[in-house]
């Protein structure tokens, strides 16, 4: 997203069943090294190819918490800065490895006066472009609309 080109959903027009514009991201080993630094998590599972080979894993493991960050990004890019993800829940399903592409998707399940609920998933994109194994599912969120910050922010 860039400020100059961003266009966001019309909050007043959101309805149950609306599909959230999906987010896809290929997670390279370089991305994972950057992520390890950004989170102060230097566990060898996430970048050390010799270490993961010893553990008989097919490659360095993407930190599962990345899935949560990508889900928030998908919602924020769709709804714009006048929105705040209040709750986010996800269940881990399968390991994801360096070089794989993730696809985040979701639909609106409830619409309230000042918030929406959404159901989401994160899958690994298969070679033919279809949804492959699940990385995180189920996943859900409650998003406050018409506000850039949460209820704990100063008035």
């Amino acid at each position: 997203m860039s400020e100059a080109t961003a266009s966001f959903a019309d909050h007043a027009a959101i309805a149950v069943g609306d599909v959230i514009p999906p987010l896809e991201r290929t997670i390279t080993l370089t991305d994972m090294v950057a992520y390890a630094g950004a989170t102060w998590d230097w566990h060898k599972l996430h970048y050390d190819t010799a270490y993961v080979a010893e553990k008989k894993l097919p490659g360095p493991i993407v930190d599962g918490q990345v899935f949560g960050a990508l889900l928030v990004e998908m919602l924020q890019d769709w709804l714009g800065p006048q929105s705040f993800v209040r709750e986010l829940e996800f269940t881990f399903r399968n390991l994801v490895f360096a070089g794989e592409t993730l696809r985040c998707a979701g639909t609106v399940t409830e619409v309230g006066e000042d918030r929406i609920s959404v159901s989401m998933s994160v899958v690994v994109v298969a070679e033919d472009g279809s949804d492959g194994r699940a990385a995180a599912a189920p996943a859900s969120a409650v998003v406050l609309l018409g506000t850039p910050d949460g209820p704990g922010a100063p008035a």
Partner: protein
Amino acid sequence: MSLLTDEVRALEGQTRVYTAPEPFGAAAGRYFGLAIGDDNPLYSDPDYARAQGLAGVTAPLTLVCETNQYAGLPMDAEGYAGHTWQLDIPGTRQVRGGNKYTFHRRIRPEDVVTATWRITSVTEKVTGSGNQMLIVGSTATYTNQEDELLAENAETIIFVGLEKKA
């Protein structure tokens, strides 16, 4: 034999508290945005953030639940420098169940984060394939130097028995 021994039961209610040695900092949010490929200007452009009604730049919401910045712990032999319960359940493999985050407000660069971790539940189940399973639930509550509530993180760790229950 049950995985839910008296020693394991005694884990419930255990608490660990960590306070970051420094404020969160604007660079932390901007760097995390770069690392995950999120170029939202809320994390890098103070003028844009102020135009939206924020005091200035903020961090991507999940970062407070993902970073080990607050822990101030040394790296272990495998490079990990964050909070763990250091649970060793023989005859099991550990898998992550999931997380439930509740965000109360956006992180500001001047926030000094305190994380309070607590084991909330320890339960035992048997999987559909007959393996014993120990489920450890814990929560982290993140506050700042003014004791303002920033976020909560409920997480589940599962220890799956390697042998089927007799």
